[in-house]
């Protein structure tokens, strides 16, 4: 019997599989399809201080081995999330959940995180300083070590739960930004968010997305994720949650060897609603194939020897 459990900032996860924010809503669409309590946890839809409709449509475009999205942080706002979404979620998910938070100013981040930190269901805060689809805030905080540190400090000052800073791959030196977050008190790093991309419609000669640009995700970005998780693992001593194009159990093992303590699955959920359940089911066999008895033991394994 293989051991799937991992520990994320002192909280035990039955397994490292975490549906990524923005691909799993607040959980209940998927709870209708399978018992989502099989998951390690999940990261709910990015939540902001005020409600947001997001960007104009079209917001989705096909890409080779992936997709572009420019949803733009659509969410009902933190008050409704606490009043309506979390109680509904409680009925279908009985583990601590990861609260994903976005903002447009340092104060926004602190305000929203402080409110969600008080919620019993929330196990960790995942602070998204890497959304490429909003025109102020978002990614701009994740592309400079100083701004990333500032958000980290502000959030840490008003919260008690572990804070994971979700970083953008659209930078030249990911290690410097991860280190800045660690120095500012972050409990962990999660990465990668989507890569900024764009497609054109040959008929109209215009961008396919109303927002012009969007974030690329899916298997296309997996090697970028492996590289960045590897680099960040070397740069910091806090745990790393890896994500970016994961769609198989082997991908999970690869990201963990690169340095991930847990692994988020994003785009795969959108084409196979059972993706996380299927990956989880395939993990024991993949572990046996590669002689792995305990997942915890392989974290960062690529760095040793």
């Amino acid at each position, binding site marked *: 019997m293989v051991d799937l459990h991992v520990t994320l900032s002192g909280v035990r996860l039955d397994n490292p599989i975490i549906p990524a924010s923005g*691909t799993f*809503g607040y959980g209940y*669409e998927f709870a209708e399809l399978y018992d989502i309590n099989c998951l390690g946890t999940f990261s709910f839809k990015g939540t902001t201080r005020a409600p947001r*409709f*997001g960007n104009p449509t079209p917001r989705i475009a*096909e890409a080779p081995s992936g997709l572009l999205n420019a949803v733009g942080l659509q969410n009902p706002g933190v008050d409704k999330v606490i009043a309506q979404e979390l109680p509904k979620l409680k009925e279908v998910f009985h583990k601590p959940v990861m609260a994903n938070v976005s903002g447009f100013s340092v104060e926004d981040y602190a305000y929203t995180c402080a409110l969600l930190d008080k919620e019993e269901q929330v196990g960790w805060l995942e602070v998204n300083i890497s959304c490429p689809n909003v025109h102020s805030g978002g990614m701009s905080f994740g592309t400079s070590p100083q701004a990333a540190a500032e958000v980290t400090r502000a959030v840490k000052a008003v919260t008690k739960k572990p804070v994971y800073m979700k970083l953008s791959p659209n930078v030249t030196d990911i290690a410097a930004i991860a280190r800045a977050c660690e120095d500012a008190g972050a409990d962990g790093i999660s990465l990668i968010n989507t890569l900024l991309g764009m497609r054109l419609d040959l008929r109209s000669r215009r961008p396919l997305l109303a927002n012009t640009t969007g974030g690329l995700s899916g298997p296309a970005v997996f090697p970028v994720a492996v590289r960045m998780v590897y680099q960040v693992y070397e740069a910091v001593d806090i745990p790393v949650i890896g994500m970016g194009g994961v769609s198989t159990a082997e991908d999970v093992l690869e990201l963990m060897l690169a340095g991930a303590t847990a692994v988020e699955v994003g785009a795969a959920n*959108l*084409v*196979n609603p059972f993706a996380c359940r299927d990956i989880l089911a395939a993990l024991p066999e993949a572990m046996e194939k590669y002689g792995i008895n305990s997942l915890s033991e392989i974290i960062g394994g690529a760095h040793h020897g």
Partner: protein
Amino acid sequence: MKQGRYTVEENRPLTADVWEMRLSGDTGSITRPGQFINIALEGLFLRRPISVSDWDGETATIVYKIVGKGTAAMAGFRPGKRLDVLCGLGNGFEVAKCAERTLVIGGGAGVPPMYGLAKALLAAGKTPLAILGFNRREEIFYEEKFRALGVETAVTTVDGSCGIRGFVTDALPERYGYFCACGPLPMLKAVCRACPTSGQLSLEERMGCGFGACMGCSCETKYGSKRVCKDGPVLEKEEILW
């Protein structure tokens, strides 16, 4: 919604670029006309959402227009091919809300789901009145299928090459109590302006997942934002903010 393997039973062109495909498999999750299925295609990441035009216990019929790589690949499928399909997606037309005499308006690629609706209205003892709009004679399909149901059917063409010259709104009858429509956005807007009654509209939007997870296809309504794939594609005229 159900995920399953479906088999292509028949795949044939209706016009130069519109094809009809009949699939066999578990259709139990299709409960209303206007719902759609989402098909996984080899070599493409996103599934392709296609509305269901007709279904029974064992088969579902879809009609699709070749507009890009995905639909072009579908036109090459031969009978016997197995497909990974998410079936019974979306919120379809609500027949109970339709009046005794209900307009069933389809424009171009929006015609197919209206066929299933016409059948459902007949089964509910109501009288569908069909208006099918196309650009020109060569693009017309499904006219005979509507007539074969015994449904009073008007056809419009923009160039006047067949039926009434003009748009679907040029063929509105005098007496009806409700309307249902599917077609391009300008057509839906024109229909809402021209029809004083209540109605239901099937919207189209680029989708990511097709089952409500990604928020890719949201639209703003009087009652807040709705997902075209999950809360729609059929919405009520009164709630749509144009």
